[in-house]
């Protein structure tokens, strides 16, 4: 009798397994098509947008040691729609499987549409669709987003989701592109005190580019040759009140990333003019930021507020082209002063640019002003946006050189 009971209970458990499939929201992995990248362009038709979907083929690369299918790793479709949520249904007239935004990694907006005043309304649809996660990246492309996805043909990382993930992750670590998630976009838009930076990218190399130093390029200007994919991620697009207004190059984006405590940057490798060389030589340094900035604000209620920003940085000297010996205290002091003044000038130039051209601060500096006020009313009366433009900003880099590198001697010249 007891055995029958156990068997019955066991059978009941088996019946329960059937419940796990769900009813109305049953999903078959097999008949889903996952959108990895979403492109938004201005449409020729009034009030519509042009949506481009980059769909990944999950079959490619999933099998170990080859033997997988010979299908292409991706599929791209572009069409005119009213919004990209209803577009999921429309796309089914072209794509055989059900469209799903669950694995959406990146939303690419063409520069032209990002400057359109309708852009904030379009992008806020992402908050409505629960499939789209707020950690999806927002990027601005120089060309039309539809062309961007077609032109972008990665040589090594053919699976699109991996390509975008690695490209963006490492770009952010290097500081060349901002950490521009949708989450930050909406946060900045709601806060209404500062500017939002979106990563800038292009798949078309610009024809003539002047040679510049290391990181002063925009995407597309870096003149790389070889057998490669032309897509580049560099610099950033500046959004004011949710609409793109300006651009920052790689170097400026890096400075913003160093200033911004809310982004995760790793070590940044840069070239700094060598104080011991009179021919404009440069040495390489690794800059590490381990601590948060200290910001002091004075006379906020006055006509000219003063902001003193202290940036604690650790620097490692990587090369020494002028072969100066750093064993002497004097040389070390010269070097330190050089690094400090270099960073100070770069930072203050950025603030000058943001006060005059951008008309706003490209990172949430206003958060540092908030503790000086007791209530929200007082803070609103203070009007951060206007006060920032008037403000006198002093940047004080606090440099600690933790490594001078291997001390090399000048090689003895033959016959010298």
């Amino acid at each position, binding site marked *: 009798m007891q055995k029958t009971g156990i068997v019955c209970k066991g059978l009941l458990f088996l019946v329960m397994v059937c419940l796990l499939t*769900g*009813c*109305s*929201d049953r999903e078959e992995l097999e008949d889903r098509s996952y959108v990895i990248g979403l492109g938004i362009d201005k449409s020729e038709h009034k009030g519509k947008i042009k949506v481009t979907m980059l769909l990944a083929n999950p079959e490619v690369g999933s099998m170990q040691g080859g033997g997988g299918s010979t299908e292409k790793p991706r599929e791209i479709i572009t069409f005119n729609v009213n919004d990209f949520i209803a577009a999921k249904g429309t796309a089914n007239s072209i794509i055989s499987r059900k469209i799903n935004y*669950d694995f959406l990694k990146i939303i690419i907006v063409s520069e032209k549409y990002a400057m359109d005043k309708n852009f904030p309304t379009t992008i806020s649809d992402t*908050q409505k669709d*629960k499939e789209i*996660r*707020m*950690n999806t990246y927002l990027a601005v492309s120089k060309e039309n987003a539809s062309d961007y996805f077609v032109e972008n043909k990665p040589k090594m990382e053919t699976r699109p989701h991996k390509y975008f*993930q690695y490209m963006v*992750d490492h770009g952010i670590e290097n500081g060349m592109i901002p950490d521009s998630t949708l*989450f930050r976009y*909406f*946060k900045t838009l*709601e*806060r*209404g005190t500062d500017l939002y930076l979106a990563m800038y990218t292009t798949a078309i190399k610009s024809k003539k580019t002047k040679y510049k130093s290391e990181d002063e390029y925009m995407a597309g200007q870096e003149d790389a040759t070889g057998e490669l994919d032309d897509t580049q991620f560099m610099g950033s697009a500046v959004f004011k009140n949710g609409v793109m207004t300006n651009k920052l190059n790689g170097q400026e984006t890096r400075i913003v990333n160093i200033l911004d*405590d*809310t982004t*995760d940057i790793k070590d940044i490798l840069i070239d700094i003019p060598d104080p011991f060389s009179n021919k404009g030589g440069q040495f390489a340094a690794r800059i590490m930021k381990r601590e948060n900035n200290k910001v002091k604000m004075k006379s906020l209620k006055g006509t000219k507020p003063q902001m003193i920003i202290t940036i604690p940085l650790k620097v490692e000297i990587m090369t020494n082209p002028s072969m100066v010996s750093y064993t002497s205290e004097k040389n070390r002091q010269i070097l330190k002063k050089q690094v400090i003044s270099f960073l100070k000038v770069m930072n203050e130039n950025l603030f000058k640019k943001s006060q005059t051209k951008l008309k706003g601060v490209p990172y*949430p500096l206003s*958060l*540092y002003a*908030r*503790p000086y*006020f*007791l*209530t*929200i*009313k*007082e*803070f609103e009366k203070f009007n951060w946006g206007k006060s920032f433009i008037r403000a006198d900003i002093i940047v004080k880099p606090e440099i600690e050189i933790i490594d001078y590198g291997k001390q090399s001697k000048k090689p003895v010249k033959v016959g010298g």
Partner: protein
Amino acid sequence: MDQQSRKLGIREYVSIAILMVGAKATEDSPTILYKQVQNASWMIPILSAGLFFIPLLLLLKTLSLYEDKDLFFVIRKILGKYIGILVCLIIFFISSAAISFDSRIYTNIIRTFYFPTSPVLLIYAMLMAICTYGAKKGLQNIGSVSYLIVYYAVLSLYIALLLSTQSSTIRAMFPILGPGTIGLMKSSFLGLTLFADFFLFTTIIPYVMSGKVFRRGTWIAFVYTTIQLSVILLVYICMFDTTLGTIGYPFHTLIRFISLGSYLPNVEIIFFVIWLLSAFIRFTAFLYINGMMFGFIFKIKDFEYLIPSLATIYVMIGSIPESAIAVSQIKVMISGAVGPVFIFIALILWLVALLKGEFKHAKNRNSM
């Protein structure tokens, strides 16, 4: 089973209380509070707890006069038969409305985030069916289960909060006073509803080991949940900043945002399952308490059999509002009423007991 083993110990009682009160930060209460007092909303649980402290103390003191008797018995004893029944009915109706709309909110959360195309009624009926099954098992079982899962619930909550700090900034809590002291004071009345459950817990005194255990458990749970609610709100504010006012369900947005590195990017399902378990406990206990109240008011001894029909009624009431927006509007109305009404009842009880000289009688009894 002997009588003793059917009673709740302190750990079971505290875990039920933590799951029921602590769960309020994982639905839409934080958004409601944020809309009122913006970035100072983390202070509301503390301020409201301060406000709620005195009535709760008085209530517990009044109840301690009648060892092992529940709230309804005491109400009837102190306020008399007719007024007593009326007050009991008011409490029952308020808590019925609260359970109906709260469970509807949970259904909305489950639907919007995880089952977008399922009909509301199906999810709602499933949720309540599970809770009814649990409630019919009795309070002792609810207590044991909640003690089993309280650690998982609390731990997973803190892990989620900890992971979210990567993308948050503590400066979002400034300007420290938010809308100013007056606004804070006003809203702390609204926050009273967060602790309304403690008032309802006094109806389960006969099921707790002893009055002393109950009082100790209440204070432990009260202090702990105050701190927890405040911490969760602070984490939300630091993470979402001003967008918190536009996000309906911050906890679920948060668990969808966080990730465990790039290899485990979408981990919300782990947190969701544990959250669902604690939701079951919350409504199971709530349903049981409501069933008990009903049984007491209408003198029905085996009130366990009433629970399925009560649950059906609650599902029907909860299904009246068409959309999530309507539900949250009703919820704001109810939460505005719950706190002050319960406080008023607690104060009246104490006052009448004082005037009737019940405290003196008790003293005399003790000294004899």
